[in-house]
C-alpha cells in the first residue's frame, strides 16, 4: 500500500502530503507519526499540505488528532501551506481546526515550531492558535 514518507530533521519530523489520500492512508499516517515521535523523541512535527486540493472532515480530524496526540507525546505540530480555496471550504464546512497551529508556508512553520519549543515552560501558549 502507498504510504506517506516521514522525514526526520534533528528533533523535528517533516511530512508532505502530496497524494489524494484514501481514509486508511490517513489513519496509517497518524499511526506512523505517533510511532516516529516516540522512537525519535521528536519535539516538533511539520505537516505540509500545499499540494492538497481538498481537506474534508476526515482529513481535518486526522490533522487535529495528530496535533493532540503529538502534544501528549511531547511534540508540537504545525500545519503549513493550506491553499486559500481549501481554507475557505474548510471553514464553510464547519471545521476551523481549533487547537491546530498553522502557518503560511514551511519556512514560517519551522520558525513557529522553534518558538514553540524554545518557549516551553514559559509563555509559549501565546503563540498557540486556539
Amino acid at each position, binding site marked *: 500500500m502507498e504510504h506517506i514518507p516521514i522525514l526526520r530533521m534533528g528533533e523535528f519530523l517533516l511530512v508532505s502530503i502530496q497524494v489524494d489520500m484514501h481514509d486508511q492512508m490517513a489513519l496509517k499516517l497518524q499511526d506512523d507519526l505517533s510511532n516516529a515521535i516516540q522512537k525519535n523523541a521528536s519535539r516538533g512535527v511539520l505537516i505540509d499540505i500545499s499540494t492538497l486540493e481538498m481537506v474534508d472532515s476526515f482529513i481535518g480530524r486526522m490533522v487535529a488528532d495528530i496535533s493532540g496526540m503529538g502534544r501528549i507525546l511531547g511534540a508540537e505540530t504545525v500545519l503549513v501551506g493550506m491553499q486559500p480555496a481549501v481554507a475557505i471550504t474548510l471553514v464553510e464546512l*464547519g471545521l476551523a481546526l481549533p487547537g491546530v497551529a498553522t502557518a503560511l508556508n514551511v519556512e514560517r512553520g519551522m520558525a513557529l515550531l522553534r518558538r514553540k519549543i524554545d518557549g516551553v515552560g514559559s509563555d509559549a501558549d501565546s503563540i498557540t492558535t486556539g
Partner: protein
Amino acid sequence: MLTASPQGEAPLRSEHDIVLARQTVRKLTQQLGFSLVDQTKMVTAASELARNAFVYGPGGTLSWEILERDGRRGLKVRFADEGPGIPNMDLAMTDGWTSGKGLGMGLSGARRLVNDFEIDSTVGAGTRVTIVRWK
C-alpha cells in the same frame, strides 16, 4: 481520466471509490469552468457524502448529470445507498451530531457547500442525497 462524460454513474463500494468520486467531481467542475473555490466546495461536499454512503450505506452508487437552465450550467450529483436509512433527519442534519465515529459535519457541512441539497431517506430502505452547484 481524460474527460468525464456529462452524465454517468460509478460505484461507491470502497475507500478507493471515494477518491475516484472526488476526482470525477473535480473533473466535471473543471469542464464546467467553475472557479477554484467552487470546485473545491463541490469536491469536498462530494467527498463527505460519498464517505457517508460507503460507511453507513454500506456502499452505494454515485451518479451525476450536467444541468442547463436559463443559460446557466450546473452540476447535479446524487449519492444513493440501500443502507439502514436515517431515523431522525433533524438530528442527522445537526452540526456535530454523529451516529458513527466522524465529526458529525458531513451532512450539515456538505449542505452549506452547495446551492441545492435534497435528502430523502427511508428507514430500512436507504438514503439518497442530491446536491447541485451552479456556475
